[in-house]
């Protein structure tokens, strides 16, 4: 399973990011979330959403094996094992592998908790099989 983003439906409200930070950090701070919202305003006036596709590229390059798979098959960061080497960050094709040393002393990523989906009022976010039909793969569309 993985998270999908149909960003033609995204209204840029950031509720997903707040829910995400509450899950990952038990904090109310959208700067510490595992989704990216990229607004394109004033022209053309659209939002782009970047989410984890659970491709596993981050885990493949992690020298400390800090990125593991949970019971849902989603890759998550074992914070205690992360040494902030940053090998994972450039590997992420969606730019949603995060290291911000001023905000946390470990890397973070989507663990497929699904809280973002629960609070998305426009159904821009949803969870489906990794190889779901193309119509679900809006996260790779150009903005």
């Amino acid at each position, binding site marked *: 399973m993985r998270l999908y983003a149909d960003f033609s439906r995204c209204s*840029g*409200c*950031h509720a997903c990011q707040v829910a995400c930070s509450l899950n990952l950090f038990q904090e*109310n701070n959208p700067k510490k979330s595992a989704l990216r919202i990229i607004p394109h305003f004033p022209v053309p006036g659209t939002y782009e959403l970047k989410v984890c596709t659970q491709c596993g590229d981050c885990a493949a390059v992690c020298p400390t094996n800090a990125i593991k798979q949970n019971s849902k098959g989603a890759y998550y960061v074992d914070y205690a094992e992360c040494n902030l080497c940053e090998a994972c960050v450039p590997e992420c094709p969606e730019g949603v592998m995060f290291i911000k040393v001023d905000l946390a002393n470990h890397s973070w990523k989507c663990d497929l908790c699904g809280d973002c989906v629960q609070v998305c*009022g*426009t159904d821009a976010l949803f969870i489906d099989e990794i190889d779901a039909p193309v119509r679900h793969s809006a996260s790779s569309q150009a903005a």
Partner: protein
Amino acid sequence: MNGYAGKILRVNLSTGKISKENTPAEVAKNFVGGRGFGAYFLFKEVPSHADPLGPENKLIVSSGPLSGLLIPGAGKCDFTCKSPLTGGYASSSLGGLFTAEMKFAGIDSIIFEGISPKPVYLFIEDNKIELRDASFLWGKGTITAEKELKEMLGEEFQIAVIGPGGENGVSFASINHDYGRQAGRGGVGTVMGIKKLKAITIRGTNSIPVADLEGYRKAGIALYKSCKEAEGLKFWQSYGTPGVTSWANEVGAFPTLNFSAGSFEGAKTLYGQVMREQIVVTDKGCFGCPSPCGKYSRMKRYDTQVEGPEYETIGMLGSNVGLADIQDVAQANYLCDELGIDTISAGSVIGWAMECFGKGILTLEDTGGIELRFGNVQAVFSLIRQIAAKEGLGDLLSQGVKKASAATGKGSEKFAIHVKGMEQSAYATHNATAMLLAYMTSDVGAHHNRAWAITYDIQVGREKVTPEKVAHVIWLQNFRPMFDVLGACRLQWVELSIERDLYVPALEAITGVHRTWEDLEKVGARIWNLTRLYWARENDGFDRQWDMPAARFYEDPPTTGATAGQITSLDNVNKLLDIYYEQRGWESNGLPMPTTLEQLGLTELVA
């Protein structure tokens, strides 16, 4: 303090001094946040009879305890000052992402004092706070300036910015944010302009402390669940506020040709459904909003974009000035946004000027050769530009409809549609007594959002004047503005009909303080009475005459549309006020009795 960032930022623009103080716990207890903080600091800190355009006036920008949290629409920011438009209390609400970013930067309120000697913008990035030169932005439109600032500082910065309207001292200048959100009413942008504060830019990376994290998370998600299951969600997401246009026209509430009627012949091409089909590109939400009413539109004819038009703008810059094409209205909206003026007041003064022209009170000489007839789209565009620049007839109109009509005379005061100098927003009230009373007694002048009572009028009998009806208006006035106090949006309650008690456990988990809605309504009444005292303190001779509506609504029944031949009598207008004052615990002159102040815990503050 849980739910709060904990600091008030004070910026003296005259001296350049920037300081922080703790958010006072007692003020948080009694006034909660947002509009409550604004009203408190205005009353307490701005000296009596201060010149709204002088250094003594302050601009108070406040978040609330729900702002920036996992609560539907938790992005409501309050801007309070002494109004240059009305001379009384001004409080205008801004949606978008700005106020959440204030909280993430560790700030509950920003209080701007004094006047800067040169154009500046306030830069905030967590604890790095400084006034920076803004001369390179001065004179630029709000959209242009915001884009430039974002390119310079980064996309994550949230920006509130004024345009030429605010710089030039138009009395109803707006503050703009996120390419289309405004604090539009009462001249809050005028005060920002006089202070030579072009913009506020914020980026914050802090977390907001809460009392019970898991309780908050659960209560927050329950609110979202309720919104997502709401029957009205799809309609509201599709059309937003323009969804009510067809209804307003059908019930005769749609402001038409300077409020001379409540139904517009060309209304059908302004309906929300037409707008969605013809110009809407993207649904745009405020912070944490599951039901985005923001409609981002593209006007192919003009090669422009705008967030909007909202229902209010469709009414005031559409039917009220005789425009029936949604692209024209959206373009007028764009011009007002870019130039930084309020679309509601702009539509009102232009509608008034058009009626003056039709009656021969204003002539081609006055208009500089413009055929100022209802429906003349180029005349509307020209006047918007002239108002923002304070040039030609725009100089007169930029003062607002009360002052413009007083200066013009010749009976034009009778069809200047305002209360207390605030142009009436887009609900025609020829025969809607609760809505009329709501406008008459609104704390900022004739604005709709304190008590949107017009659906109640239709429900219980629009012409009725009863104690129950007045009580309902008072309840709305105490309750609805509490959303602006808490820093979240009321529209999930209004439009999606979600249970308001769902907010109670969320607020408790966030702040650690148990408050029922009855407790919150008492805070609402406290703020309402404080702002009433502010009007009286600032305006010698303030009395019930200030609560009178435009004469049109008791003298001049429409001849067309759903309300043709209908009017509220002057006797009933006075009866509404008598009952209202009695139920509010106010004297017959409209001022709160000492016992009322005592009950609300205001005696000491106002002494």
